[in-house]
Structure formats: structure tokens, C-alpha cells
């Protein structure tokens, strides 16, 4: 299979977004809705009610065969062998230089069949990486164009979609999935996952049926005040939870140990660069990803310098925003280990001023 970069792609729901008045922006090679009514409104709707995101740009790879598990154990950092059918796992693909190729979800369909969900921006890189390390008898297929993906997120998600399927969504455990008929469409994967911290589901739908499911969800969710939500709200929601975004908080040069992803890095098995990461875990790392809140007015942004109380450079901001839920200016960034403890006073260099901040442990918002 050959994959090349071409012109801007569209998701199967592109025309739906345009008709809803969404502001469309280029993102990871796709034309994506960044906002509909406004980021604060959409953010609040997800926190309090229910919002629907089109995240069809995400990539899906199917890994099949009797050695599918062996391949996944080799390329991912988490222990895939603990999964049972219908269970989902957050993980990452470590590279050989101490960094991260991508973060991803691993779905166990059965012992010989796994679905990987990867970031759109890394799709081609991931595909090449996993194939390069497939010295096993595992068969990979890229199903990214065959699946549309909707994230229905928020405390009212069960009410919003419960009537659309016979699957028992009410009793689905977090990070599990089932396959069934949804809104009359067979073979939809309903997954109790999401990246907002608001609870809810992600729906993997055959692309041709995306608009049908979208419309059914919007109609069924109208009673709970469902709204479409864009990438901007998705970013503020994930950041309030302290969830890493690839390209901001993690990348090819940040290790999972530095990024606080030790909990998905399991040395009970062998995987790419395991020895070096194990040494990091045992000996400690020079810098760590931390969360922080500004104590005076200002907004931290990616790339801003982080300084200590004497003004010495100690790191860099990787994500930042005004938290729509708390009204506080929040961010994440790498700092030298000596400054990584919670409640450590730090400063963020914003234009010509240093704005004081305090290291805090995410989440920045608790429901």
C-alpha cells in the first residue's frame, strides 16, 4: 500500500458541518469544523449536557493474524496481553530514540484481531512505522477511509443515544466497546471512550452511513440539548483534563516517562526502546511534563518559556488556554525535574512580562 499526501481531504460529514455554519479549518490534511456556535458555548454544552464531534479524520488500522498480539506487544508501550475481547487500551508507539511516534487506542476485537486508532496527523508515519516492524505474521489494513468516527460526549450521552440501539450502553464500562446495529446501521462499534473527561461514547460507523447516524444522534439528543462541537472545544476539554495532545505535549522527542505516561509503559514485556525507557524510569528523567495555573492575568501558549523565581529558563509551555470551566489560565509544559513538584512557584514568559504560575496536578477541572 502506498500513501501520499494530496490535497485537503474532507470527512463524510463535511457538507453537514458547512450547512450548520461551522467554521472550517485545515487540520492534519483535513478540512475540519473548528467551531459552530463558539468554543465556550460548545465546551459548556459537553461538560453539562452532550456534544457531538466529528473526528472522522482519525486513522483506523486493523491488525489480524495469529501473531497480531506479538506485533502489538513489540510496537506499543502498554501490555496488550491483559486485554480481553471488547476492551480498549490507551497506549503509545515509542520510537528508538526515546521519543513517541504517536499515542493511540488499541481495541481487542478477538485474540487474532485488533483495531488501532491513531492521530490523523501521524497516520502515514504510524502506518510506515508499524509495517517496518512487522517481522511477525500479522496482516495490517488501513481502514481509515472506511470509518467515520463520531464522539458523543457529556453527562447526558446515555440519554442522547440510548434509544438508538439495542446495545446496553447504560451498563457499558469505561474503555469497553460493543458492535451492533445503531440508528438502523449494522456493524457500528460503540465504544465507551473519549478524550474530554465528560464521559460518553465514540461511534465507528461505515463512512457511507455517517450522515444518517449524525442526524439520528442530533434528533435523538435534541431533548437533552445536544449540540455539535468543534476541534477548539475538543482541545479545551482535553486540556482541562490534562490529557496529552500529540504535537503539543508529546512528540518524536519526548519520552513517555517524561510525559507522565509511565502508567501506559509496561516493562513486563519487551518493546521498542524498552531498555532505555526502563533506565529512565529507574534513574529518573531530567525534565517532566507538568500542569500549571497562572496566578495573575495572562494566557500561556505553546512555545512560551517557563522560568524559575530567579528568571532562569527551566522549560517550555506545550499547551495553554483559558479554561472555559474554571475561568483560570491553565497550561502544560516541560520543566526541569527540580521544579516539577506540585505547588512549585514558576513563571511564564508572556511577551515582555513574566506572569507568576503554580505547578498543579491535573485535572484542572473536576466534574
Amino acid at each position: 500500500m502506498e500513501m501520499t499526501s494530496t490535497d485537503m481531504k474532507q470527512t463524510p460529514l463535511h457538507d453537514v458541518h458547512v450547512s450548520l455554519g461551522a467554521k472550517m479549518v485545515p487540520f492534519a490534511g483535513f478540512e475540519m469544523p473548528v467551531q459552530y456556535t463558539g468554543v465556550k458555548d460548545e465546551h459548556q454544552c459537553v461538560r453539562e449536557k452532550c456534544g457531538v464531534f466529528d473526528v472522522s479524520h482519525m486513522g483506523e488500522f486493523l491488525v489480524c493474524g495469529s501473531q497480531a498480539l506479538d506485533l502489538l506487544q513489540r510496537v506499543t508501550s502498554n501490555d496488550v496481553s491483559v486485554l480481553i475481547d471488547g476492551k480498549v487500551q490507551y497506549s503509545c508507539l515509542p520510537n528508538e530514540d526515546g521519543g513517541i511516534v504517536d499515542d493511540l487506542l488499541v481495541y481487542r476485537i478477538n485474540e487474532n484481531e485488533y483495531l488501532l486508532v491513531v492521530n490523523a496527523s501521524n497516520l502515514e508515519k504510524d502506518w510506515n512505522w508499524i509495517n517496518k516492524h512487522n517481522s511477525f505474521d500479522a496482516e495490517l489494513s488501513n481502514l481509515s477511509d472506511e470509518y467515520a468516527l463520531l464522539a458523543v460526549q457529556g453527562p447526558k450521552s446515555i440519554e442522547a443515544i440510548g434509544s438508538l440501539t439495542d446495545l446496553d450502553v447504560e451498563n457499558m464500562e469505561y474503555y469497553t466497546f460493543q458492535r451492533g446495529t445503531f440508528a438502523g446501521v449494522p456493524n457500528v462499534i460503540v465504544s465507551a471512550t473519549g478524550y474530554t473527561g465528560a464521559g460518553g461514547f465514540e461511534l465507528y460507523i461505515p463512512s457511507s452511513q455517517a450522515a444518517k447516524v449524525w442526524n439520528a444522534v442530533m434528533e435523538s439528543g435534541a431533548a437533552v440539548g445536544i449540540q455539535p462541537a468543534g476541534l477548539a472545544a475538543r482541545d479545551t476539554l482535553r486540556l482541562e483534563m490534562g490529557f496529552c495532545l500529540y504535537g503539543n505535549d508529546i512528540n518524536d522527542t519526548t519520552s513517555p516517562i517524561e510525559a507522565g505516561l509511565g502508567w501506559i509503559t509496561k516493562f513486563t514485556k519487551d518493546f521498542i526502546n524498552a531498555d532505555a525507557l526502563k533506565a529512565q524510569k529507574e534513574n529518573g528523567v531530567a525534565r517532566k511534563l507538568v500542569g500549571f495555573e497562572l496566578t495573575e492575568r495572562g494566557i500561556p501558549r505553546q512555545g512560551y518559556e517557563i522560568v524559575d523565581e530567579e528568571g532562569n529558563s527551566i522549560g517550555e509551555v506545550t499547551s495553554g488556554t483559558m479554561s472555559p470551566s474554571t475561568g483560570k489560565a491553565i497550561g502544560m509544559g516541560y520543566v526541569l525535574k527540580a521544579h516539577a513538584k506540585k505547588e512549585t512557584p514558576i513563571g511564564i514568559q508572556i511577551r515582555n512580562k513574566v506572569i507568576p504560575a503554580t505547578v498543579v496536578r491535573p485535572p484542572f477541572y473536576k466534574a
Partner: protein
Amino acid sequence: MNIPKELRYTKDHEWIRVEGDVAIIGITDFAQGELGDIVFVEIETEGEELETEEVFGTVEAVKTVSDLFMPVAGEVTAVNEDLADNPADVNEDPYGKGWMIKVKFSDASEIEGLMDAAAYEALVG
């Protein structure tokens, strides 16, 4: 999109309302729409003499930060203090309650050189 006829405009999406020798300055309806929800307007140049195109402040939206440029040279004589507590005024009423600064301009011919509503509409339309 709202582009009042009586105002002047810049390519940086600021509007200018002239009252005598004072220019009242804000950002346009188009600009606030592009920025999205505005959460913080920072202007600390009150009392300063600034050149045309010099940065007089910044506006922070949830997603992005953007510099504010002087449409004309002059002294910043007033800053809209209400925006400190109500930055969303810029979104809701960009040409009214969302005004940002007043400038005592030094050269009236600079005002004449700014875009009128028709020219600005052509730029963003």
C-alpha cells in the same frame, strides 16, 4: 457581517471612528468572528506616543493570541477599562462597547489614507 459605513478600516481588521482630533479604535466584526471567544484584552500603552503599525496591545481568544496595531500615529489617551472584566464585549458589540483605545492622532492625512467601508468589505468579502 457588520461593516458600518461611517468608519475607517485597516488591513489588520481594526476600525477607526474620528471625533475631532481623536480616533476611537477597535477590532472589526470580521476580526472578532475569526478570533472566536475573546477572554482577555491587554493594553498597557495608555499615555504613550506610538507610531503607525506599532503594537498597542494584544487580544487573547481561547484559541489564539493576536497583536493590535496602531492604525495611525499618536498618543494613546484612553483605554476601555471595562474590557478587563468584560472582554466578551468585543465579540458582542465590536463597534460599541468593545472599543479599545482613543488616540490623539498627529497627522490627519493618515486617516484619509485608511480604507472606507466599501474597500474593507472588498478585502474580507
